[in-house]
């Protein structure tokens, strides 16, 4: 009976359970980050390390866990679950495991709260640390990166194991009896790794979060401005098959993208929220991954590769509605938030532009332009209208190019299709390449990904200017003026000089050793 428990004990127990739940989430999420964990022992207690274990607290994870708990504690019938899922670069996703923290009615009244329960909870956390390295998802999470990312989701309430497919296995991490119930920590993990087997929602299954295609839900998303690649969004379902007491919080955080990931790889850094539909834009059914790919493909011009594309509405700093598609199908991901100064993401911080010229595409593409690595500048935002496309001069100037070519090379069969080819021809026809380049290469050479409004000189200009540097003065001495004989004559003098300074040379060599 709870009356047996003193008030202080009850308070302590509640606190223990609360922090145990938070630490459990931290351990599980950190174990799926894909990195090795290392924390230090400290013989002098700091007072902030719960359960005497040095487990780092990732703030976003704590925040999400607290949000999921919404001030409640795991209790009888109210389990806290952490679901780990895998999402490929093509957009397929699959739930891998569900960790459940449950409480049942079996009470152990005689146990001492502040001592035994605390130590046993500590032991349980250690067991959790050990077991999280043993389930199959651990190996998968260590290899995440280009092809897939590992995501997590915290929910509170009833455990949903049907998403794990048939034949899932269960591992019990441990139990701790308390005066108000027995705490059980267990993990159910999928054994059937065939894709697509559980993605279609069954009739009575509630979609935890919208899938990539055919989303029936309206989602609002807000981007947090904390470390990039963080998307936090809450899902409100328009179709609720099972009434749930609390709003499901979904946090998809690509594990590698969290702040303490030191090894940055462009494809690991972020994750886009799933499709958003707002009433005035395309219906969600259109905004599916494959469709986006088509749209994106249409934007390709003459084989110009499209790099990371991020389509966003709203200003960078805002939390705004996303009205365009997710780009989960592109293998490169761009951080959701632009505040990436200081992050060494050079490869991916230059967002590319695309021609969204498809007539059926009502997408309004807003591109967040990112500055190169370690540049502490605010990002600029470019709308479609003012886009300067790479090789933009191609399109209108193509015609001119052809004209020029025809004029200069009437005998050439098909006119060159690119300025590069044109310049090749021009080299052949006239002597100095510098001059003819002006004829055949478009005036504004805009290499891809290079434009930057903030620097006075762009890469193209730089390239052109320094393509033909002047000769080094030492090399430009007219060779004919010097004869071999003169060289040989001056040789003895040089040798004599060197012999005089031999001590100096020796001393120098010694310093090198």
């Amino acid at each position: 009976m709870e009356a047996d428990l003193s008030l202080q004990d009850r308070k302590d127990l509640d606190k223990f359970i609360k922090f145990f739940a938070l630490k459990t989430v931290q351990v599980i999420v950190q174990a799926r980050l894909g990195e090795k964990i290392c924390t230090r022992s400290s013989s002098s207690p700091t007072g902030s390390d719960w359960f005497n274990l040095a487990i780092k607290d990732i703030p976003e994870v704590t925040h999400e866990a607290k949000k999921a708990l919404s001030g409640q504690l795991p209790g009888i019938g109210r389990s806290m679950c952490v679901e780990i899922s895998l999402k490929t670069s093509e957009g397929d996703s699959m739930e891998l495991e569900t960790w459940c923290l449950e409480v049942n009615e079996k009470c152990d009244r005689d146990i001492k709260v502040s001592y035994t329960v605390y130590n046993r909870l500590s032991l349980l956390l250690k067991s959790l640390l050990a077991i999280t390295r043993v389930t199959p998802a651990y190996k998968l999470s260590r290899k995440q990166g280009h092809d897939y990312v590992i995501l997590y989701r915290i929910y509170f309430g009833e455990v949903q194991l049907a998403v794990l497919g048939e034949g899932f296995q269960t591992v019990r991490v441990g139990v701790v009896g308390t005066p108000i119930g027995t705490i059980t920590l267990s993990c159910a993990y999928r054994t059937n790794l065939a894709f697509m087997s559980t993605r279609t929602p069954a009739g009575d299954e509630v979609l935890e979060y919208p899938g990539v295609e055919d989303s029936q839900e309206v989602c609002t998303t807000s981007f947090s401005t904390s470390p990039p690649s963080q998307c936090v969004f809450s899902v409100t379902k328009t179709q609720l098959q099972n009434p749930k007491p609390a709003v499901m919080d979904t946090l998809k955080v690509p594990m590698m993208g969290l702040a303490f990931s030191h090894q940055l790889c462009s494809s690991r850094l972020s994750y886009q929220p799933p499709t958003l539909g707002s009433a005035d834009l395309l219906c969600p059914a259109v905004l599916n991954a494959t469709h986006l790919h088509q749209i994106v493909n249409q934007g390709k011009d003459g084989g110009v590769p499209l790099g990371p594309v991020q389509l966003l509405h709203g200003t960078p700093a805002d939390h705004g509605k996303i009205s365009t598609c997710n780009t989960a199908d592109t293998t490169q991901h761009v951080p959701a938030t632009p505040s990436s100064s200081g992050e060494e993401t050079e490869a991916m911080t230059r967002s590319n532009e695309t021609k969204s010229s498809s007539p059926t595409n009502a997408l309004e593409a807003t591109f967040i332009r990112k500055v190169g690595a370690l540049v502490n500048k605010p990002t600029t935002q470019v709308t479609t209208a003012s886009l300067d496309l790479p090789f933009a001069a191609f399109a209108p100037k193509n015609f001119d190019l052809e004209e020029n070519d025809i004029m200069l090379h009437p005998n050439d069969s098909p006119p060159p299709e690119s300025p590069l080819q044109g310049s090749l021809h021009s080299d052949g026809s006239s002597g100095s390449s510098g001059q003819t380049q002006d004829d055949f290469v478009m005036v504004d050479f805009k290499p891809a990904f290079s434009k930057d409004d903030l620097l006075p000189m762009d890469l193209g200009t730089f390239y052109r200017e320094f393509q033909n540097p002047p000769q080094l003065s030492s090399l430009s001495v007219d060779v004919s003026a010097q004869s071999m004989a003169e060289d040989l004559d001056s040789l003895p003098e040089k040798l004599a000089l060197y012999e005089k300074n031999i001590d100096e040379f020796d001393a120098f060599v010694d310093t090198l050793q």
Partner: protein
Amino acid sequence: MNCRSQVLEVSVEGRQVDEAMLALLHTILLHRSTGKFHYKKEGTYSIGTVGIQDIDCDFIDFTFVRLSSDELDRAIRKAVGEFKDALRSSGNDGAGQISLEFYQKKKSRWPFSDECIPWEVWSIKVNVVNLANEQERQICREKVGEKLGEKVINIVEVINRHEYLPKMPTQSEVDNVFDTSLKDVQPYLYKISFQITDSLGTSVSTTMRRLIKDTLAL
């Protein structure tokens, strides 16, 4: 009291012996260690924090968690190294058993020396296999990784039965229960011993003699 005893069995290739033993011993010690105790007035004490770290195995597809204590790691590695050397010197079809025993010291009156009373013994039976080619080795890597995973689950299962643990000692008694010689963690008093079974299956008793010698030396 009765000492509970657990036996784990693994079959590994020669070069995997080290890591397999380390993985299992460290997993057990992770659960059987606390932070350093700091005794305060009136018999209360506070406990230090232990850190943890992931260790990847080179010859096995496995990662295990151990305490962040280099001293402890060195001690375990030394014992495992001796075990491996003994296994190797015993011949090709090596089989042996390494035991991790947790004990309590009980002070006896003079002239009797202190008793060591074990309260938990973990025995890991090792069977060394020889593999013919690289493909078999690759399969062995994965299989042993899975097996070790199962063993870790077994260990966790046993530990979470919450059976007998020594009472938390007072300051004067702490050395009878815990090994306080390390500076960052405090495991329960333990000792590691091993036996090599030769090909006939009979056990070699040199290490048993050593155990007795140790007991007497205390």
